[in-house]
């Protein structure tokens, strides 16, 4: 029977909730902390920051990552920046505004209390990162610079050129390495978590595979933290790293953790378009580029002239036309749908006609070129001078992105506009967690992109880094006390306990199963076909009919996988194909759940766009009467889930039709 979920939101007014919670949450004394062991799976922003902070507090921490070093988690690839309500720009920003923008950006499908807490701790994150030596962009006065991101009208984004994620992760990684050096964290690299071990209804450990030797290991923990990122790779082509996967979260789901809003996927508007069937991944061009790049298509259908030959009056700056108040900085879901709409209508550019232009020329010349010329006292500068001066500024702001674009496409974006198209980037859905970030399994937590909690149906740019670090540095280290304070008498459980033995046996059997199918098709073959179904039926636009077809197709694909996949090599060696087989098998199950969720939610909101539910001018049409809740799915059996709901109550924000016009 479906139940109403209790998110354990503290009482009191919104602005007091977190402060009061922190003052009242049970504490664990330092002597007891040493005896409490915490397992952290994943070492991206959320995992590295949590592992380091918990070790600093005195807990005994074990951290796991599948990469060869914690520094390589995919947070490293985040480009544009991190939001914080510092109001350093004196442009009217505040904790409330960051909170409000995030709720609105998420199309009113996020939990107020979590989002407000996120906005509250955002400023501390910047302080912490600077203290670690993260080299954010600075002005000549030595103070921090900011830029704008989509869905906001202030400048609150801190950045380090186009590699902010790298710098933040290296900061968290350095704190983690420090704790490893001090002996407070035991790090397991090239290890993949393959199951959660449950003892008496609580998460008490994991089964991990040493990816080099292939050996399965049992690890005990009083609590287990999953900081394992999102599941965008269910689409095969995405901006995620090749290894990003849902396996840890999926194993938790199969052990009882509810999965929240699985269909809420973020399709990022500005990515380098697909160039052929060989393509293994898609590359993002940061949203920050929309500060200075203008998006357009030709006004004439099927125009084949080179971009620079199309005169100004024959260009359709469709975002500026449709959304004058936010222009090129509308949120991602809106920008993506608008690009798709233009391309589907026949106005797309490039060989595939599935791309739009992102053009820097006018800002490079008019904004930066003229400003630099004026600084240098050059009157009436010619265009060549303006281009030269503007180019230097653009290079400093986005140089690495422009280089990357050139390497991939062979075209120079300083000269011709970038061609871009939306691509899967982030998943707002994830394991359902309460205010303490605990899943519905006791002792099992989910942090960062792996949980569902803060971004509703659409995440605003530069908020993923903020959430990952908020969860790891400032939220979980407090909230975990509520659980661990009652665990101080629990002695470490032997990994020879039957629950560990059973769990390891099940993992072993599954590996043996993959290796013994000995079919004819590669793992990638299945992954690509799954991705195609998902992109076409559960991507930027969804319909009841399409989703029903997709569910049937995915079920058939799953059967075929278990009868015809070929996994070469052995279990007791470094075997990347075997790793992929396990991940793709989980993606296939997840894909089905995403379609089930998308079918059940008969409204459009944020990144979830159901063709049947739109306004006359093509905007997402929410149904707050019927769907103002979080969908949290309980795994029952293969292809069988039960829906539970968490009602979303808006006490502080007036829920309204989202408008960026």
């Amino acid at each position, binding site marked *: 029977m479906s139940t109403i979920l209790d998110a354990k939101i503290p009482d009191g007014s919104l602005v007091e909730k977190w402060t009061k919670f922190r003052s009242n949450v049970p504490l664990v004394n330092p002597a007891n902390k040493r005896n409490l062991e915490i397992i952290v799976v994943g070492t991206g922003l959320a995992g590295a*920051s949590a592992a380091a902070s918990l070790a*600093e507090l005195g807990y005994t921490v074990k951290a796991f990552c599948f990469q060869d070093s914690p520094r390589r988690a995919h947070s490293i690839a985040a480009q544009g920046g991190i939001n914080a309500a510092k109001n350093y720009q004196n442009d009217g920003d505040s904790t409330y505004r960051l909170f409000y923008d995030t709720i609105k950006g998420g199309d009113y499908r996020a939990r107020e209390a979590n989002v407000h807490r996120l906005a509250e701790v955002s400023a501390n994150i910047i302080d912490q990162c600077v203290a670690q030596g993260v080299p954010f962009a600075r002005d000549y*006065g030595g103070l921090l610079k900011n830029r704008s991101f989509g869905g906001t009208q202030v400048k609150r984004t801190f950045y380090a050129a186009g590699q902010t994620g790298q710098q933040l992760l290296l900061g968290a990684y350095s704190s983690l390495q420090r704790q490893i050096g001090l002996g407070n964290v035991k790090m397991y690299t090239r290890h993949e978590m393959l199951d959660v071990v449950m003892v008496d209804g609580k998460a008490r450990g994991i089964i991990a595979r040493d990816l080099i030797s292939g050996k399965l290991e049992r690890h005990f923990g009083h609590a287990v933290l999953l900081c394992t990122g999102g599941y965008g790779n269910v689409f095969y082509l995405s901006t995620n790293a090749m290894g990003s996967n849902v396996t840890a979260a999926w194993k938790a789901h199969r052990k009882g953790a509810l999965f929240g809003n699985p269909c809420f996927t973020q399709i990022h508007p500005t990515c380098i378009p697909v160039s052929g069937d060989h393509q293994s*991944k898609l590359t993002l061009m940061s949203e920050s580029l929309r500060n200075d790049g203008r998006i357009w298509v030709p006004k004439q259908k099927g125009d084949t002239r080179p971009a620079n030959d199309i005169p100004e009056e024959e260009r359709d700056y469709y975002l500026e036309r449709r959304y004058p108040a936010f222009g090129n900085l509308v949120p991602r879901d809106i920008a993506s749908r608008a690009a798709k709409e233009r391309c589907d209508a026949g106005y797309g550019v490039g060989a595939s006609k599935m791309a739009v232009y992102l053009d820097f020329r006018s800002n490079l010349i008019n904004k930066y070129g003229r400003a630099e010329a004026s600084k240098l006292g050059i009157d009436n500068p010619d265009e060549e001078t303006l281009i030269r001066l503007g180019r230097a500024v653009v290079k400093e702001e986005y140089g690495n992105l422009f280089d990357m674009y050139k390497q991939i496409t062979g075209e120079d974006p300083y000269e011709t506009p970038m061609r871009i198209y939306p691509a899967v980037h982030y998943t707002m859905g994830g394991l359902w967690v309460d205010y303490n970030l605990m899943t519905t399994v006791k002792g099992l937590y989910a942090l960062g992109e792996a949980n569902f909690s803060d971004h509703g149906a659409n995440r605003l740019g530069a908020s993923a880094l903020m959430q990952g670090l908020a969860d790891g540095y400032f939220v979980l280290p407090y909230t975990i006390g509520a659980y661990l304070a009652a665990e101080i008498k629990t002695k470490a459980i032997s990994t020879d306990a039957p629950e560990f033995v059973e769990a390891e046996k099940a993992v072993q059997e599954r590996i043996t199963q993959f290796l013994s199918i000995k079919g004819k098709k590669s793992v990638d073959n299945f992954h690509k076909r799954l991705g195609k179904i998902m992109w076409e039926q559960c991507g930027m636009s969804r319909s009841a009919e399409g989703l029903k077809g997709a569910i049937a197709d995915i079920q058939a694909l799953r059967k075929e996988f278990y009868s015809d996949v070929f996994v070469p090599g052995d279990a007791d060696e470094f075997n990347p194909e075997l790793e992929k087989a396990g991940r793709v098998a989980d993606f296939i199950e997840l894909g089905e759940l995403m379609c089930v969720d998308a079918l059940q939610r008969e409204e459009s909101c944020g990144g979830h766009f159901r063709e049947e539910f739109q306004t006359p001018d093509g905007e997402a049409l929410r149904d707050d009467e019927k769907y103002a809740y979080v969908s949290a799915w309980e795994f029952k059996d293969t292809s069988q889930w039960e829906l539970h709901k968490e009602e979303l109550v808006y006490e502080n924000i007036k829920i309204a039709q989202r408008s960026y016009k």
Partner: protein
Amino acid sequence: MEGNMNLTLKVWRQKNAKSEGRFETFDVKGISEDMSFLEMFDVLNERLISETKEPIAFDHDCREGICGMCSMYINGHPHGPKQTTTCQLHMRSFKSGDTITVEPWRAAAFPVIKDLAVNRSSFDRIIASGGFVSVNTGNARDANSLPIPKENADLAFMAAACIGCGACVAACKNASAMLFTSAKVSQLSLLPQGQAERQMRAEKMVAQMDAEGFGACTNTGACEAECPKGISIENIARMNREYLSASVSSNKEY
């Protein structure tokens, strides 16, 4: 078949750290110029799998030049002919008919795991020995209370851009890790946050680097020339100054 490039690949195969390795030759056909070098390997591996042979193991993850996981030594250069990561090397840098030799990073401190994948955990241990500012979560003051001259901030950022791939080690005839280590020492010594531990950091990181079995630096500059992120050899000079001043003034045991 997506393109019309045909290539001969000579690839290092090695079952594990303990076994002997050897080159194996493969013909690959129908490669497109738009493919990345790793996507060309995907095509080859897909074929090997369809022939029920074992695919070539190699490290890779983000495929956008930032995670530092990919690590192929191509025709005598780490990451190949361009100053970029292997994943950002595209087949348009080669000609149809080329023979391409692909090896793993070669260094005593980077033992081979399998085929082209190596173990670089020695880099993590160098960072763990001192590549950080000791500031616990919650101890920070307001970020703007610490103005940093833009010039220093920019230099620190350029050093911090290191992706830890190990190309510098692979490029060096001595397999020295000086460029990697000095980039972190430089970043933190250029910033006010890094001052308190400045001397200890240089000494400990250099000691760890030596303990891992990396070779000495003989200033050939090969590391800088091959670094996909353009990390400057000036960082090595800066670290040498840091190290010298630390060893002259320090009499502590850490």
